[in-house]
C-alpha cells in the first residue's frame, strides 16, 4: 500500500459561495500515489494548484471530493508529522536561528513535554542540523543578520528538527539567485539521504525538479490536473555536472513540452 494516496481529489475554493463566479476549481480529479521515502516533485505553470496539493496532503484544507490517505488513514485534520518550508523563510525575527529551528520541538509531542529535561539534547540536535546545511556557528545570530539563502537553510532545519515523516516544500528556492539555489539543491539532496523522509517539492524550476526528484508530476493550468509522470533514474548523488548531460537535458525538455501542452485550453 502506498504511503500517501490522493484518489480523484477535487478542490473548490469558495465552495460555500452562491454564485458560480466566486467559486474556483483549483484542483480537478488529481490522483497520486507516493511511496515511503520517495522524493517527488510537482511542476506546472503558476497558479495551477501546486501549492493547494501540498495543503491537501498536509490536511490544512479538506478536498471537496475524493480522499487523501496518509499511512493508511484518511486525512481529516492537519497532520502533525509534517515539516513545511516556503518561498519566504518565515523565521521569527525575535528569535535567534537556533531557537527558530527548535520551534517545532516546543509544539510537537513527545518533545514538547520533555523540553526542560532534554534542553541540551534539543540544542545539540539543532546544531547538528545547522551544521549539515552549512550554518554551524550561526545559531546565535538573528534572522536579519543572515542572507536570503542562509535563512532558507535555517528554514529547512526548522522543517526537519522534529523528524517528520513527510517534508513539504513549496517553491523553497524560488526567491534565490541561481548560484545559491544550485548550492541548496545539493544541501537538500544531502539532507534527504541523511533523513530518508518522504519529500514533496513544488516548483516551477524544471531543472530543480529533475535534479532532486525520483518522480516528477506535471500539472496543467488551472484547474490543475496531473498530465504526466516522469521517473528520473539518474544515479545519486547527483551533481551540478549531471545537469549538463544529454539525458538530463532531454528530461527537462520533455517536461517543458508537456507543460506547454497543458497551458493550451
Amino acid at each position: 500500500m502506498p504511503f500517501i494516496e490522493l484518489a480523484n481529489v477535487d478542490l473548490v475554493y469558495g465552495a460555500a459561495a452562491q454564485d458560480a463566479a466566486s467559486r474556483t476549481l483549483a484542483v480537478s480529479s488529481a490522483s497520486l500515489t507516493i511511496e515511503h521515502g520517495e522524493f517527488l516533485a510537482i511542476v506546472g505553470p503558476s497558479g495551477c494548484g501546486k501549492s493547494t496539493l501540498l495543503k491537501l496532503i498536509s490536511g490544512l484544507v479538506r478536498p471537496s471530493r475524493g480522499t487523501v490517505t496518509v499511512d493508511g488513514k484518511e486525512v481529516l485534520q492537519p497532520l502533525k508529522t509534517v515539516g513545511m518550508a516556503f518561498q519566504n523563510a518565515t523565521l521569527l525575527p525575535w528569535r535567534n536561528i537556533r531557537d527558530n529551528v527548535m520551534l517545532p520541538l516546543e509544539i510537537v509531542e513527545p518533545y514538547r513535554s520533555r523540553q526542560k529535561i532534554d534542553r541540551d539534547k534539543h540544542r545539540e540536535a539543532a546544531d547538528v542540523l545547522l551544521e549539515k546545511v552549512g550554518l554551524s556557528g550561526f545559531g546565535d545570530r538573528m534572522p536579519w543578520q543572515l542572507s536570503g539563502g542562509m535563512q532558507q537553510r535555517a528554514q529547512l532545519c526548522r522543517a526537519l528538527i522534529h523528524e517528520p515523516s513527510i517534508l513539504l516544500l513549496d517553491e523553497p528556492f524560488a526567491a534565490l539567485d541561481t548560484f545559491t539555489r544550485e548550492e541548496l539543491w545539493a544541501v537538500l539532496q544531502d539532507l534527504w539521504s541523511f533523513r530518508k523522509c518522504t519529500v514533496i517539492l513544488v516548483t516551477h524550476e524544471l531543472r530543480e525538479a529533475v535534479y532532486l526528484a525520483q518522480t516528477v508530476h506535471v500539472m496543467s493550468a488551472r484547474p490543475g490536473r496531473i498530465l504526466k509522470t516522469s521517473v528520473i533514474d539518474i544515479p545519486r548523488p547527483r551533481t551540478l555536472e549531471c545537469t549538463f548531460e544529454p539525458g538530463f537535458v532531454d528530461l527537462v525538455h520533455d517536461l517543458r513540452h508537456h507543460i506547454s501542452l497543458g497551458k493550451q485550453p
Partner: protein
Amino acid sequence: MTPKLQERLAPWVTTLVLIAAWWLFIRLFDIKSFILPTPWETLQAIYKFRYPLFVHGMSTLATTLIGFVAAVVFGMALGILVGSSRLAYSGIYPLLIGFNSVPKAALVPVFVIWFGAGTIPAVCTAFMLSFFPVVANVATAFATIEPELFEVMNSLGATRWDITRKIGIPRSLPFFFASLKISVTLAFVGSVIAEIVAGNSGIGNVMLVASSNFNVPLVFAALVVVGVLGVGMYAIFDFFERRMTAWSIRGGDAQVQAIGG
C-alpha cells in the same frame, strides 16, 4: 559635535527655542501677566507652589496610572480577540470606532452622576481615552501574522493558544509598546479633564482653582507639571521598548509607528 550628541541635545534645544519665542512674544506685544505669564513668572509660580503642585501632581499621576493600567490590560485582551478572529473583528471593531469618536470630556458628567465627584470619574476618563490605541495596535499585529506562519504552526498541531503565545504576543510587542507611549499621554489628558470638570484634587483641580483666582502663572505652572509627567512616562516606556523589542529596531532607523490616538 558628533551626530549622536546632536541627536541627544536636539529636544533640549527645541525646548529652549520655544521658551525664548514665548518670552519674545510677550515682550513684543506687551502682554499682561494675567493674560499670559512669562516663562520666568511660570517658573516662580512652580517654586512658590511647589508643595501643592507636588501633592496634586502625584495624585494626578496615580489616577492616570490606575486608568492607564486598566486600559492596557483590557486593551491587550480585546486586541488579541479582535485581531485573531474575523468574526470578533467585524462584530466589535465598528463599535470601538464609534466609541472612540465620542468626545470623552462629555462623558465626565455621566461618570460624576454614577460615581460622584472625585477620583473615580478621573480614572474612568483616563481609561476611556487610553484603551483604544492599545486595542487597535495589538489587533493590527495579530491580524497581520503571515499566513505561512499559521500553516507552519497548524501543520505541527499547534493549538490556538500556542500560536498566540509563540507568535502573536512576541510579534505584537513592538506595536504594543508604540501604543503605550501614545496611550499614557492620552491618559493624562483624560484624568486632567475630569479633574477640571469634577475633581476635588489633582492638577486639573489646581488649574480650576487658580484660574478662578486669576492666578494665571499657577495655571501655566500646572500645565508644565502635566507636560513633564507625560514626557517622563513616555521616556520610561520608550526605554522598555528599546530593551524588549530590540529585534524590531535593527540599526535604529526603522521603528514601528503606532496608529490611533
